[in-house]
């Protein structure tokens, strides 16, 4: 499409269908943001991708940083020079940035600094489920929650103003359903970008004296308890004396509205929607609490608002009589997981004792009887031609041949699927970015205690830059023993192929010298071998040899992500299955290529009892020719 992101148009009043993250980006542009930094992570990645389309070295610097801590530091650097800046990240990313954040809060900021965190309720594309709102409260910084698409645009300029007003970073929290949903957004005007970055002589941004600065933050929060009562994002709709009030934030707002419509409760139940969830607006909330005796809190993910609301009531004796708060803590909404429209619906049915059926029992019965056995699951797997498949094939085989029960520590990226059948269930641990190397470093010092199992850490290229380097240095320093395999596909493939230091291109499209992973490893004095994982025999032998060595052996399995390579260069080989040679299910093969190797480009044809190539999706990587026990798969140069 010619203008997929007409995000830069200065056409106030124009209505565009924007993704929540695009709306946040638009809001940042309307706020005059000058520096934006992030590390890719779903569901936050599109914020920077969108801003990159408006990037211009003289007006707006946009970057993919190596990790979230650095991203927030980069944004803070701009803020200290008086510019408006933002950093965006997913929930896990905030943990990485948190060390910096818990000092930045005390040191204060210059130009408006907004921290955007996109939580992933249900962990749809994450390794965990985590409610980051607690972390704002813990840090004494204000927390705004986006509740819709228009909101996502409106709230960002407000957050920048707020940041400058209180001299502190402000956290804006979105969630998957908003960040990755799309809705109509009405554009405001784009400001004239002007002003030269300047560090004001005599200013300091340090956390000292600590207690003074800590007190200052508490004072700011106190002030906001008062000021937030006028914030435009806190709204009440509903009757003056409702039977019940839904207190909600984030996507819970739209789901609550829907529930009232479906149950026809708009006359009985009110909705108090909070955009400023920390600190709570004192007067506004007291007024809300005075309207009713019963409150249902609808929020993602943990009972943050619910707990704060209970605490608020506890602090206000005048509000206490007979007030009841329902939500996740009372079991009216499930303990964990993201919200769906059914959650407030079910809670309201219970609390107000309303009989409601979505569809007739006869239809439910029909669904059961008609669809039984006709819907099967779709397992996730590596793409056709993915170099990770070849890498894990060799790791699996090498470990079996080594025979000492080697352990593989996994990491975050597409290759995390190596804990599932697509990656032959090779990886046995998975935690944070770079943890594969750190955990392996710990396992690798257990030799003198009698450990006999070798250890292999697997790490992607982007993950290597993000957090594996300190772990590797640590391992080298403490004389650990393990094989570190860097599966380098020259991309941050999991989150949408964002560039990283090794790819030689910034997100603003500027070519730069790539940072070579091998150079970094060499500089640590560890052994480095670079090879192409498509060469199965060499790969397996190299792993086996490395497993027998002491110290740290770095193996870089370098092959470009199949999705990129296929787009760039097309098929390397034309693959064929010689059906005369293919023995299919017979003893000696048992569908080795389709059942075990499991590349989706290989199809098992139950009628002929042979494998064949799916020419539509085969990328022609040629690897399957090397695994066929009957040499029935052939490759020809394309």
């Amino acid at each position, binding site marked *: 499409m010619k203008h997929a992101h007409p995000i830069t148009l200065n056409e106030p009043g124009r209505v565009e*269908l924007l993704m929540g993250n695009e709306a946040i980006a638009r809001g940042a542009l309307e706020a005059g943001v000058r520096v934006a930094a992030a590390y890719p992570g779903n*569901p936050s990645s599109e914020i920077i991708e969108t801003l990159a389309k408006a990037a211009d070295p003289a007006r707006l610097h946009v970057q993919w940083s190596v990790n979230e801590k650095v991203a927030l530091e980069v944004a803070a650097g701009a803020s200290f020079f008086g510019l408006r800046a933002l950093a965006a990240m997913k929930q896990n990313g905030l943990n990485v940035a948190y060390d910096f954040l818990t000092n930045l809060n005390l040191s204060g900021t210059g130009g408006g600094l907004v921290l955007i965190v996109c939580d992933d309720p249900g962990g749809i594309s994450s390794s965990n489920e985590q409610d980051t709102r607690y972390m704002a409260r813990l840090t004494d910084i204000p927390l705004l929650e986006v509740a819709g698409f*228009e909101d996502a645009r409106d709230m960002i300029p407000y957050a920048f103003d707020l940041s400058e007003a209180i001299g502190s970073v402000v956290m804006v929290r979105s969630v998957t359903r908003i960040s990755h949903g799309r809705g*109509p957004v009405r554009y405001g005007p784009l400001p004239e970008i002007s002003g030269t970055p300047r560090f004001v002589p005599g200013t300091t941004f340090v956390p000292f004296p600590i207690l003074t600065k800590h007190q200052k933050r508490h004072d700011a929060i106190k002030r906001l308890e008062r000021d937030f009562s006028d914030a435009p994002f806190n709204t009440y709709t509903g009757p003056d004396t409702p039977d019940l009030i839904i207190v909600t934030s984030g996507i819970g707002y739209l*789901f609550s509205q829907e529930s009232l419509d479906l149950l026809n409760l708009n006359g009985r139940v009110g909705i108090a929607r909070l955009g400023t969830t920390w600190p709570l607006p004192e007067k506004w909330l007291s007024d809300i609490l005075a309207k009713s005796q019963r409150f249902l809190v609808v929020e993602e993910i943990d009972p943050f608002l619910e707990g704060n609301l209970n605490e608020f009531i506890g602090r206000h004796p005048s509000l206490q009589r007979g007030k009841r708060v329902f939500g996740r803590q009372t079991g009216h909404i499930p303990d964990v997981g993201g919200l769906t429209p059914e959650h407030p619906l079910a809670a309201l049915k219970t609390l107000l004792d309303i009989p409601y059926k*979505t569809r007739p029992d006869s239809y439910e019965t029909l669904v059961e009887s008609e669809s039984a056995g*006709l819907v*099967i699951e779709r397992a996730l797997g590596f793409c056709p031609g993915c170099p990770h498949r070849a890498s894990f094939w060799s790791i699996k085989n090498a470990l079996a041949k080594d025979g000492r029960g080697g352990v593989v520590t996994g990491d975050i990226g597409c290759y995390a699927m190596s804990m599932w059948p697509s990656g032959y269930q090779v990886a046995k641990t998975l935690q944070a970015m770079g943890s594969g190397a750190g955990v392996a470093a710990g396992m690798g010092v257990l030799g003198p205690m009698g450990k006999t199992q070798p250890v292999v850490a697997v790490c992607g290229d982007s993950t290597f830059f993000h957090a594996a380097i300190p772990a590797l240095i640590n391992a080298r320093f403490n004389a650990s023993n393990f094989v570190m395999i860097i599966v380098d596909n020259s991309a941050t493939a999991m989150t949408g192929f964002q560039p990283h230091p090794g790819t030689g291109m910034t997100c603003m499209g500027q070519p730069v010298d790539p940072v070579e992973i091998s150079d970094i490893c060499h500089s640590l004095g560890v052994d480095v071998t670079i090879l192409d994982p498509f060469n199965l025999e060499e790969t397996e032998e190299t792993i086996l040899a490395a497993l027998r060595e002491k110290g740290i052996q770095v193996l870089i399995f370098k092959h470009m992500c199949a999705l990129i390579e296929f787009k760039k260069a097309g098929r390397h080989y034309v693959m064929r299955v010689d059906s005369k040679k293919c023995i299919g299910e017979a003893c000696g093969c048992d569908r080795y290529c389709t059942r075990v190797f499991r590349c*989706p480009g290989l199809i098992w044809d139950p009628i002929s009892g042979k494998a064949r190539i799916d020419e539509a999706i085969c990328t022609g990587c040629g690897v399957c020719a090397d695994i066929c026990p009957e040499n029935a798969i052939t490759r020809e140069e394309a």
Partner: protein
Amino acid sequence: MSGFKLPYNLIIAGVGGQGNVLISQLIARVFIRKGFTAVVGETYGVSQRGGSVMSHVRISRERVSAPIIPKGHGDLILGLEPMESLRILRDFGNPGIFTLTNTRPVEPIDVISGNLAYPDLPAIMRAIETLSNQAWFVPASKLALEMGNSLFTNMIMVGALIGAGKLPLTEQNFVDILHQYMPDKTFEDNLAAIRKGIAAIEKTSVEKR
């Protein structure tokens, strides 16, 4: 346009890589252009790699709907894959729902690898028919291949959606939007695909209820 109540809940069902996202955006843009409000809810992330993907498109006036349709409240399913259409019907179906589905299965990796069998396609189609007020089966993948590229499948299904006549959509609505975003040649091809889809809808099928 009988049966076009608001909010109208349209679900696009398919498999990662089939292009749900583009169709859902296109349809939402068309409605916004027509003065409606539209929101889209999507599943991203790992579902891109071979998993089931659904997009919810909700059309309303003024009031913005939640980007997720409540269970049992689908009005129309545009299925790019038959089993996915049935999967969505199970959760979002009701006696009034309309279903348009592409008839060509996309096999899950466990079927490709021979570990599981793809469920009986005629049975899936019968179930879709039984669970829908009215169902249309469109050989969109086949028609697309006849046009020379399986990528046209989506536009053929969009054409079928227009042809089914359950939504206030015309060919012209899409012409306006597509022309904006595409070079002329691509535009002509896509328009041809839409027309093929419109023509593919059997006018003979009748509403049950």
